[in-house]
Every structure is written in structure tokens, then in C-alpha cells.
């Protein structure tokens, strides 16, 4: 079925497939963990039952999404070795310890406090439960920090030397962790996770508002989500632009691919292409529609500043332009649609029709999944744009591969595709079904979920200030 493909391309497809599935869950759980911490904090502060109901509603959804993130993440931690063993051997001394820090400072924190956050309110009392909830949220952010440092180092490597055996040897950990693109990437991704979650929460709120505009929980979550949309989207667009300038400085070839700039413009007036079909074979952008000069302005250069194109780069050092060019446009396009939704909601709020504007609610539902699409498109842009290297400029993808024969990689790829679509397809279906129920519904599943309670001491005896959770 996959005859004729090289082991390299199969391994790349396999990694792209498993990591793409995986990133969907953290993108959601980073945002949702923080949202849960906010909801729980507001419940404790205001004693408004709406917050507690929302907390209990989203926590069950979080549990399912988090479980999917855990299992798809375990796969990632082994796939570096099974499929990219030469990369692991060479780059392991640098990226390995960063990932070890991720496991030690983030994964254990999340997993250790998750049980208490999900099932422990009655057992440990409100204060410790709030602490556990905050630790889970903090853990997701720590995880993002370390893994983005790893990824950024692969994009903009710094602080190392290369030993005789080919290994990257860490020389300056500060320079490695805070490599040139790290902070830009971290901010961009965390904002993306928050925005993605806000769009999902907004869509669920809108769905229930369309059914019953007096639904208290739906009103509350929709309002919170739309505040996020109007505040975070402009910040994200600004952060994305800054990230782009950083890429222009450190990975100019990636920018050439993102912008479809095959040709150099020695006299400036570089166009910004809105549309085009990249043609790598002929090294030109077919059917190009561009605005002259806007390219220079986007790069924050004077109009007559010369720009270089892919014609200055050897073919074997170029990324595949079509994917990078279009995935970038998908991400940016969706970003502006999100901004549109934010502005529309702010207008409706100012007019006092936030909970009555049916078309706004319908638009919010349509925009619900777009955060995930934008996250994936953004990652495709940056990862495919890094090609043909794994460690940018130093280690080629074709030299990173494990000595595993193509049939073995093909077989495992097929297995991953079947299993992931079945398992995560089912999970997505369950998530959607839970979201389809009103927040005030006592049971989201047939049953509320695992009981996860044990013990001979009833909760009130542990904590005299015990407050029934659900």
C-alpha cells in the first residue's frame, strides 16, 4: 500500500501525523486548565453557583481531552528513538535534558494533581483543591515552556559545539534555553492555546444560548469567551508579527517560502502575495496576485530596501514552498476571522445584545474549531519551513533517520493512522456529545464518570468546612 515511498518520507509522515494529533490536545488543555483555575477561583471568591457548575462541566471535558493528550504524548517521547535515532544520538545531549525537565517539572505536576482536581474537592477541602487546580494549570504552562524551548533550539540553535563523534555538546545552557526564537514562539503558542480554548468555550456557550437565551451558564461562558476573543486576538496578531520578524532575522529562507518569494528584489518594492500557486520545479509563483511594496512594509523595511528570494538559495536547501505558503495563509486568514468575531461580539456587547444576537452565536459556533486549524497550520508552517533540516543549518532531516527499513515504518504508520482515527475519533465524538449537553445537566455521560472515591473517612470528617462539590 505504501510501496515506493522511502523510509525517510514515511518516517516524516509518521512523525507529522502523530505530532499533529498530539498538539490538538495540549493546545486545548493548556487553555482549559487555566480557564478551570479561573472558574474555580471565581467560585471561591464570589460563591456564585454558576462558576461551580461551569467548573464541573468543563472539568469532565478536560479529563477526556487530557487523557487523550497523555497517551498521544507517551508515543512522542519514544518516537524520537524509534524513527529518528541518529537525531536522538546527535541532538540528545542538548534537547534531551530539556525534555527531561519537562517531564520532571510539568508532566508529574499535572498528573499528580489531576486526580485531586478532578475528584478530590470533598476529600481535601476547597483550599487544597484550588491549589491542585492551579498546579495543573501551572504544569501545562511549564510543559509548553520546555517543549517550545526544545523546538525553538531546533529552529534557531545556539550555545553548543559539535564533538568529533557528531554529537551536539551543550556549552551554555542559558543560550540553549533562551535561544533566539524561544520567547517569541512561547508567547505565540500560549496565546494560541488560550484563543483556541476561548473559541471552543464560546461555541459551546453560543450553542446553548441559541437553545435557551436565559441559560445562566451559557451566558456566563459565552461572555467570558468573547472577552478573550476581543482581547487576545489583537495581542496574538501582534505576537505573530513579531515572531515573523524574528524568523526573518534568523531563518530568512523560511520567510521566503512563507511569502512565496522565489525572486529577489534588488530595488525593493517587494510584493506581498495574497494568492499564488508555488511551483518549486520552475522556481516561480504561478497565478500570483500581489501588492507591490507591501512586502517591504510587512518586513518593516523602507520601500526601496532590497530583499532576497529563493533564487539565492540552492535547491537542496529549500523547504517545500507550497505547503509553507498555504499553511501560513490559512493561519493568518483564520486569525483575522477571529479578530472579526471579537469585534462583532464587542459591538453586540456595547449594544447590549450579546445574548440575543443569533447570527453572532451561529458565527461563534462556526468559529469553534478554527483555533485548532490555525494551530495546526501554524505548526505546519514553522516545521515544514525548517526543512530540509532537523537542527536548522546543522543536521539534515535525511541524516537524522533511524536505520529502520521502509516496510517496518510503513506498517507502523498504517497502524498509527488506524488506531488514532478510531481512538481519537471516538474521543472527539464523546467530547462533542458532552458539549452538546447543557452545563447544568447533572450527568454528561451515562454516568458521571469514574467514581474515584475511596476511603473509610467521610469527607466532612477530614474537613469541617466541607462544601458539597456537585
Amino acid at each position, binding site marked *: 500500500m505504501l510501496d515506493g515511498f522511502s523510509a525517510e518520507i514515511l518516517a516524516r509522515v509518521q512523525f507529522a501525523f502523530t505530532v499533529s494529533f498530539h498538539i490538538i490536545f495540549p493546545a486545548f488543555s493548556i487553555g482549559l486548565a487555566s480557564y478551570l483555575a479561573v472558574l474555580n477561583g471565581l467560585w471561591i471568591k464570589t460563591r456564585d453557583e454558576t462558576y461551580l457548575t461551569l467548573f464541573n462541566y468543563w472539568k469532565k471535558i478536560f479529563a*477526556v481531552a*487530557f*487523557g487523550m493528550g497523555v497517551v498521544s504524548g*507517551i*508515543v512522542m*517521547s*519514544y518516537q*524520537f*528513538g*524509534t524513527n529518528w*535515532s*541518529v537525531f*536522538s*544520538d546527535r541532538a*540528545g*545531549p542538548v*534537547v534531551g*535534558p530539556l*525534555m*527531561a525537565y519537562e*517531564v*520532571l*517539572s510539568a*508532566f*508529574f505536576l499535572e*498528573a*499528580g*494533581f*489531576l*486526580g*485531586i482536581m478532578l*475528584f*478530590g474537592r470533598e*476529600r481535601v477541602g476547597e483550599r487544597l483543591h484550588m491549589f491542585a487546580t492551579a498546579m495543573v494549570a501551572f504544569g501545562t504552562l511549564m510543559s509548553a515552556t520546555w517543549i517550545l524551548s526544545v523546538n525553538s533550539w531546533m529552529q534557531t540553535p545556539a550555545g553548543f559545539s559539535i*564533538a568529533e*563523534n557528531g*554529537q551536539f*555538546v551543550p556549552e551554555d*545552557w542559558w543560550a540553549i534555553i533562551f535561544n533566539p526564537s524561544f520567547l517569541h514562539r512561547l508567547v505565540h503558542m500560549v496565546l494560541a492555546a488560550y484563543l483556541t480554548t476561548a473559541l471552543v468555550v464560546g461555541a459551546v456557550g453560543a450553542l446553548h444560548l441559541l437553545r435557551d437565551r436565559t441559560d445562566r451558564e451559557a451566558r456566563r461562558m459565552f461572555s467570558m469567551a468573547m472577552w478573550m476573543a476581543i482581547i487576545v486576538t489583537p495581542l496574538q496578531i501582534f505576537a505573530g508579527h513579531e515572531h515573523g520578524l524574528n524568523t526573518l532575522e534568523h531563518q530568512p529562507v523560511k520567510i521566503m517560502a512563507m511569502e512565496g518569494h522565489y525572486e529577489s528584489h534588488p530595488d525593493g518594492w517587494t510584493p506581498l502575495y495574497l494568492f499564488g500557486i508555488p511551483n518549486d520545479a520552475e522556481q516561480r509563483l504561478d497565478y500570483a496576485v500581489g501588492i507591490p511594496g507591501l512586502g517591504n512594509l510587512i518586513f518593516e523595511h523602507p520601500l526601496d530596501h532590497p530583499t532576497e528570494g529563493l533564487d539565492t538559495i540552492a535547491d537542496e536547501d529549500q523547504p517545500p514552498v507550497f505547503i509553507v505558503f498555504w499553511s501560513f495563509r490559512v493561519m493568518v486568514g483564520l486569525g483575522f476571522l477571529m479578530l472579526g468575531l471579537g469585534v462583532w461580539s464587542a459591538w453586540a456587547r456595547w449594544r447590549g445584545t450579546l445574548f440575543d444576537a443569533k447570527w453572532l452565536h451561529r458565527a461563534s459556533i462556526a468559529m469553534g474549531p478554527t483555533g485548532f486549524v490555525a494551530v495546526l497550520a501554524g505548526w505546519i508552517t514553522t516545521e515544514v519551513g525548517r526543512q530540509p533540516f532537523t537542527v536548522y543549518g546543522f543536521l539534515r532531516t535525511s541524516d537524522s533517520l*533511524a536505520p529502520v527499513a521502509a516496510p*517496518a515504518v510503513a506498517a*507502523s504508520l498504517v*497502524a498509527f493512522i488506524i*488506531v488514532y482515527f478510531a*481512538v481519537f475519533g*471516538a*474521543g472527539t465524538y*464523546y467530547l462533542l*456529545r458532552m458539549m452538546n449537553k447543557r452545563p447544568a445537566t*447533572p450527568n454528561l*455521560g451515562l*454516568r458521571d*464518570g*469514574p*467514581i*474515584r*472515591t*475511596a*476511603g*473509610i473517612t467521610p469527607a466532612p470528617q477530614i474537613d469541617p468546612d466541607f462544601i458539597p462539590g456537585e
Partner: protein
Amino acid sequence: MVFDLAFIWAGLIAFAVLTYVVLDGFDLGIGILFPFGKSEQDRDLMMNSVAPVWDGNETWLVLGGGGLFAVFPLAYAIVMPALYMPITLMLLALVFRGVSFEYRWRTKNKGLWDAAFFGGSVVAALCQGIALGALVQGIEIDGRAYGGGWFDWLTPFSLLTGFAVVVGYGLLGATWLIYKTEHEIQIQMRGYAWWLGAVTLGLIGLVSILTPFQGPEYFQRWFNLPTSVFVMVVPMLMLALTWAFYTGLNDGKDLQPFLSALGFFVVSFIGIGISFYPMMVPPSLTIWDAAAPDSSLAFALVGAVILIPIILVYTAYAYWVFRGKMDPSEGYH
């Protein structure tokens, strides 16, 4: 014996793997015993007894893999391709069983995810045992990469170790349930534990007898003076634990069988460590060959020394919060 960064890290990785085996062993064991749950309530109870802790347990597997990547990247780069198939199968199996914890509550088709929980647990345990057996038998190295074939891992010996791990995890699951439950299900598990214990000990014995013949180094270590005198401590400990296990079971103790069964694993693990040392990947890659540069080892060690004790504290706290017997009447609607 050189007490340096590489040696300390070998000890820490061994600790992470052992902690994984000890912790996830019993929750995989619950999956292995799942079809023997007599009613839906019993199966709910079995799964609920590990639900708050399973993902913390599996995080130790990520630390084992991620830690190896960090501090022994060459060993990671050689072992993973060598065990490509069992590792990939184990990961897929863990996907199935991991999601079952949440999924089975979200559907009318509970049987499907019950089967996934059982199948995933069995296959994951089997693959872990196979990986262990293949490692004991040795991995062929060519330069800085795996040099063997794609089915080198598949031998009668590795299948035996695979089977032994499935049975052993089943034993851990049964004794965990003795500790966490009461009445019929506890009586049922006491019965299972008796037999699972006997078969586990028999398999440990068989593997122990066969191991010295898997490599001349092993043989020398176990049967030549003076090392054989010291290593005899291992079978002695095993005998003591066997006594503790069966007296605990017969006297109706709740926790003693579980702790003794964990002891079987700890002592077996020490035995494997004695066989392997100073190899990281038998028969030729030592701990020092495989170690990352000192700058990597030192940096990672700072984090490990600070964070591992903290992790142990809050992990223990999470177990303490969910301590005691399960109450089957709690939590339903």
C-alpha cells in the same frame, strides 16, 4: 566502580524504570484481570481503584524514555530501533487502555472499551516483558546504530519474559485489589493471588535459571566466586518475600501480599541490574559509552535532584488522599 555523573544517572534511570514497573504494574494488572470481574459493578470498582493515579504512574514511563534520551542518547538511539515493533505495539496498546478510563463512562457500548482496556493492558505488559528479554539477550551494534535484523527481538526467551511480566502484573493487580476492596471481590482476588503468585515465582525461577546462559558475562557473575557469594543474597531475599507473601495471604492480611509482590519485582530488578552492570545495552555498550557529555548530565542532574524528591512527596500525597477501601455504593447515579 566509578562513582561519577554517568553512574549516578544510570542509577536514576534504573530507579525511574523500577518505579514505573512498581506503579504501573498494578494498574496494568487491573486491566489484565478485567475480564474476570464478575459483574459490571466489580469492573467499575476495579477500574476506579486506579483511576486517580494511573496517569501519574505512566509518567514514569515517559521519564524512563525521556531520561534515557537526555542522558544516554546513544543507548536510546540503539535500543529503540532494535525494539521497534514491541515498542510501537506497546505504545498503541497504552493508547487503547489509557483512553478507556474516560471513554467507557461516555458510551452505552461499554463492552468495547472494557475489551480495549483488557487488550491494551495485556499487550503493553507483554511487549514490556519482550523488550526486557530482548535486552537481556543482547543487542547487536554497528558503529553508533543498531546493527541487527527486525525480528531479532522475537525469541523463545523473550516470549517467556513477556509472559512472565503479564502474569506478574496480574499478580500485582490482584494483590492491589485485595488491599483496596472488601467482601466477595476481595475473596476472589485472594484466590487468584495464590495461583498468580505461584506461577510468577515459577517463571521468575525459570528466567533466572536461563539468564546466565544468555551471555558468558552473566554466567560468570552468578556462578563464579567471589561475586556469586554476594549475588546469592538475591535468591535469599526472594525466599523471604515468598514466605511473607503466602503467610500474608493465608492470614488474611490486606497490604502484606501487595507489598511482598512488589518485592518480587524489586528483587528481580536488582538481579537484572547485577547481570547487566556495567553494561547499559548488553553485550557491549557500557554506561560510560552511552553517556551524554558531562555538561548534559550535570544540568539534568540539578533538576532531578531538586524535583524527584518533590515529585515523590506529592505522588505519595495523591495516594494518601485516595487511600483506604473502595466504597462501591459511592459515586453512582
